[in-house]
């Protein structure tokens, strides 16, 4: 190690539930944390979820106390809307250059009153709402955003596109809008790094047999989560995107792209059996006279109380599970025709659906592979980060002082993510503690020398 004393400060990349959990564990143990996320606010994918299996907790309700605690924590420095650009140094003294994207809002002055977004005349399709809802050109991801500070998206802003507008600037009561703002880079130093860059979903564009993502009433699981969310674009109502009608026949397709080494990804995405069962169940809660169908190859419900959850979906919510894949999905009038099979009854099956929900697989969060390269970490063929030793050192990477947790390591649900994040935090803490002991020992030795 270096001569200087190692830095007992952690840098965490990605502020989803994994990054937040690790940050809180470390910060609550008395060490400083820098928490970086590329999005304007923290929470990651969990902020998009409705209710969580197997308990059906409201995701927002269990998430918000965490985001608020992270947001207010004395020892956590939040660096959102930012990306890590370069990492130099080594364990004990990483020097990290972080690029902050211009928000065109002076966040120190902003009070989060929301007037700018309210008055902004430009609406665009929202990624956070998975295309089902819209946001303004100046926006926060959600009303519960932490930090509750807006960013202005240059690509959609009328002013930046050459029109006269500057409405936000005019209405902001504290003059926080700064249309001349430029991005900047900051340097942070840390002794350890935790990777927590999470996941994206495999794009529906790549599923030609299911309409290439071009069919309005064929959506992915996260879009369905937004529909189910009380704070989502439909205020929790299940509505057919094409015309807003209440769908009475809903087909869920598991393994839409997963376990498919030929055209999709070879691995099992692990959470979809459960998220699909949850979707079918919540759909029936919202539309009691509707019918849900699930096409599946296997139902993998190996977590605690998971099998019981699936059984409830079948027995109580009377969801029909059809054993087999769906070969094609296409529009037929205002319906979506689904051609599947049930290999248990040896029948080709056709369903005229109002809505089709594809359980597309988790893939590593955007930028994970580049970060891995930058940090000298290994990733598998799919781009998920590799363990130092998959059995015995599951949160360690090949690089000393760099740990990892959550969906960037492989598909996993929230309980597993949180457990792994606490595991990674424990590794950081034990590293810091060891350094403390060494420092103490050295001090003692020096004292003896005197």
């Amino acid at each position, binding site marked *: 190690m270096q001569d200087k004393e190692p830095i007992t400060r952690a840098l965490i990349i990605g502020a989803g539930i994994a990054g937040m959990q690790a940050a809180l564990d470390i910060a609550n143990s008395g060490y400083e944390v820098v928490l970086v996320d590329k999005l304007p606010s923290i929470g990651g994918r969990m902020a998009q979820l409705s209710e969580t299996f197997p308990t059906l907790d409201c995701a927002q309700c269990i998430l918000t106390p965490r985001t608020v605690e992270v947001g207010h924590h004395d020892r956590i420095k939040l660096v959102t809307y930012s990306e890590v650009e370069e990492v130099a140094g080594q364990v004990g003294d990483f020097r990290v250059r972080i690029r902050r994207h211009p928000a065109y809002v002076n966040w120190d002055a902003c009070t989060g009153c929301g007037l700018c977004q309210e008055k902004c005349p430009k609406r665009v399709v929202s990624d956070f709402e998975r295309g089902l809802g819209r946001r303004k050109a100046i926006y926060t991801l959600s009303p519960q955003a932490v930090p509750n500070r807006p960013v202005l998206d240059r690509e959609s802003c009328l002013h930046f596109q050459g029109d006269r507008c500057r409405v936000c600037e005019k209405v902001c009561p504290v003059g926080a809008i700064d249309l001349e703002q430029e991005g900047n880079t900051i340097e942070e130093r840390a002794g350890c790094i935790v990777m927590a860059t999470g996941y994206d979903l495999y794009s529906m564009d790549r599923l030609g047999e299911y309409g290439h993502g071009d069919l309005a009433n064929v959506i992915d699981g996260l879009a369905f989560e937004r529909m189910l969310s009380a704070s989502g674009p439909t205020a929790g109502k299940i509505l057919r995107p094409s015309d807003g009608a209440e769908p009475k026949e809903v087909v869920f397709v598991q393994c839409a792209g997963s376990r498919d*080494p030929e055209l999709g990804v070879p691995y099992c995405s692990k959470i979809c059996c459960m998220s699909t069962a949850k979707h079918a169940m919540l759909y029936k809660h919202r539309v009691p006279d509707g019918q849900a169908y699930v096409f599946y190859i296997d139902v993998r419900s190996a977590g605690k109380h998971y099998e019981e959850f699936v059984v409830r979906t079948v027995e109580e919510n009377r969801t029909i599970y059809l*054993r087999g894949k769906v*070969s094609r999905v296409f529009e037929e009038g205002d319906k979506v025709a689904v*051609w599947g*099979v049930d*290999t248990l009854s*040896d029948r080709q099956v056709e369903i005229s659906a109002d809505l089709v929900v594809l359980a597309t697989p988790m893939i590593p969060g955007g930028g994970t592979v580049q970060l891995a390269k930058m940090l000298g970490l290994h990733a598998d063929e799919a781009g998920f980060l590799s363990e130092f030793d998959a059995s015995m050192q599951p949160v360690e990477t090949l690089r000393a002082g760099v740990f990892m947790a959550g969906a960037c390591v492989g598909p996993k649900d929230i309980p597993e993510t949180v457990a792994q994040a606490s595991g990674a935090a424990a590794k950081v803490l034990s590293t810091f503690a060891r350094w403390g002991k060494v420092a103490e020992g050295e001090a003692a030795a020096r004292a003896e020398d005197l």
Partner: protein
Amino acid sequence: MRARMSAETLTSELTRRIEEISGENLLKCYQCGMCAAGCPAAFAMDMLPSQAIRFLQLGLVEEVLNSDTPWLCAACQTCYARCPKGLDLSRIMEAIREIVLQERGDYIDLGDLSPRDLAEIPQQAFIACFRKYTA
């Protein structure tokens, strides 16, 4: 009836030959049913394409040799286009036909076709039938 299974029944000469001449590993199939879901001819078959593979996996070859499924496969490759494991069922069906043709002779007698059919059916269909349905 119970299917008796043993190491011996699972490794019959016939399955081995089907794998060899089709060039496909039958155990790659994980029975997802994608092929059956999309097969345009399955409605007329007595056994779904995926089921045919299943019987072969289990060494129950006779079931497949007596089925009309291989003969109703149009080699359209819809199944192959979407099979997540990349199995080309049209090759497996061809292998099954080949074995039946060798064992039992022609499946159809092209001589039975009416003169009208002979005049109208495009050459390509004719030759295809000749190659797929006769020994």
